[in-house]
């Protein structure tokens, strides 16, 4: 892991991986959408509304995955003080927040025809909403200091504190027997959904996962370039100050 903390080495590997990841992302989302919207059967109970699930479920997975990744990067940043881990954690936050929001919005759109309500104060929904607020708090805190590194450090601690919420989300449907249905893919005894529906779901999940990596690399690249520009400008200012 320490090998990849070197920004130059990270960039070399990331730049090589980027076109492949982007390709996989585009292909699997295109194929996933085709199967999800056209070539998969409507549900016997939910009808065509079930197709919202192909967006909703992967978005929810990614919301949790991004928070886990953010907490892991934050831990690395705090323990080993890798500047790159800090940068990756910050780059993850908006992506995770967007996926969480997408999950909440699609869930709400699905809930209106199925449950008859846009929103219910169910354990899963509430904990997901809290996850969204945690992302917002993380982003606000990391930008709240005049000295940016202070903000990153504080936000990293917050990310670790907020991680308690992730297992709560995962198990909320088992602990509280409320409106949201329990897990049907990642559960003991294998997935409980038909292969014709599992295929688009998995394709979309793969697409979202690779999308995250693509955006992460793009954002990290931009941040590294920004830091370089900052250093060059500072050097210029210092040189001008010395009258050279």
């Amino acid at each position: 892991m320490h090998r990849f903390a070197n920004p130059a080495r990270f960039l070399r590997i990331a730049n090589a991986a980027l076109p492949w990841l982007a390709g996989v992302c585009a292909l699997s989302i295109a194929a996933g959408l085709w199967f999800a919207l056209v070539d998969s059967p409507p549900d016997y109970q939910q009808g065509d509304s079930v197709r919202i699930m192909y967006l909703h479920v992967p978005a929810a997975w990614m919301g949790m995955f991004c928070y886990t990744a953010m907490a892991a990067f934050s831990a690395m940043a705090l323990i080993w003080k890798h500047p790159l881990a800090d940068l990756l954690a910050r780059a993850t936050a908006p992506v995770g927040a967007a996926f969480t929001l997408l999950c909440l919005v699609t869930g709400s759109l699905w809930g209106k025809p199925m449950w008859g309500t846009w929103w219910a104060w169910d354990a899963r929904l509430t904990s997901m909403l809290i996850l969204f607020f945690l992302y917002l708090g993380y982003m606000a805190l990391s930008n709240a200091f005049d000295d940016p590194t202070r903000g990153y450090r504080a936000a990293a601690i917050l990310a670790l504190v907020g991680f308690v919420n992730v297992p709560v989300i995962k198990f909320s449907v088992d602990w509280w027997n409320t409106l949201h249905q329990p897990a049907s893919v990642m559960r003991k005894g294998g997935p409980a959904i038909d292969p014709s529906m599992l295929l688009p779901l998995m394709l979309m999940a793969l697409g979202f996962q690779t999308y995250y990596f693509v955006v992460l690399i793009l954002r990290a690249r931009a941040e590294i370039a920004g830091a370089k520009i900052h250093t060059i400008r500072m050097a210029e200012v210092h040189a001008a100050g010395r009258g050279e």
Partner: protein
Amino acid sequence: MSRFGEIVRRDLRLALRQGSDSVMVVTFFVLTVVLFPFGIGPEANILARVAPGVLWVTALLASMLSLDRLFQADYEDGSLELLVLTPTPLEVVVAAKVVAHWLTTGLPLLAAAPVLAVLLNLDAAGFKILLLTMLVGTPILSLVGAVGAALVLGARRGGVLLSLLILPLYVPVLIFGVGAIDATLQGLEPRAHLLILGGMLAGALALAPWAAAAALRQALE
């Protein structure tokens, strides 16, 4: 351990001598609760229905508003740096300050809650459990709040930021605090809710001082 007591005593003395902080917290609690009968109408049965939630939400806000004095004053006048330099582990310092904070905010809130419950026409069955949930719940608020208060030291617009960081983490306390009272009022057993609250207190007690101490260290670096 003696240093722990010293810091608690120092913070209590400061709170008692230099300010009306505890009085302000309780005043805020009372005033906000009194607003509700005006907001939702004075019908006794509606007030009795919302009383547990109103009391808990306002207690939570009052507790949050007082968090800035946990570390802010010490941070500004430099005594926090001296506390960090003492041989006492910073975690113990944080725990002592949290205890002092709870004694000056949580305890007064606890004392004011039954009076306000009378104003809101809470059913007699709910009084004991209201006090019990607040007795277990308000220390969690102080512990989790200490992490937030330490994180926003020196931040721009720290107060607003603090509420964004802390309120999501307060939600579970609110859910199980109100849940226990509602269960009792409906004649159910509140034990499960109380046990979860107790578990959260144990977890916060074990983890929050470490997180807050880490946040203080990075604030003073």
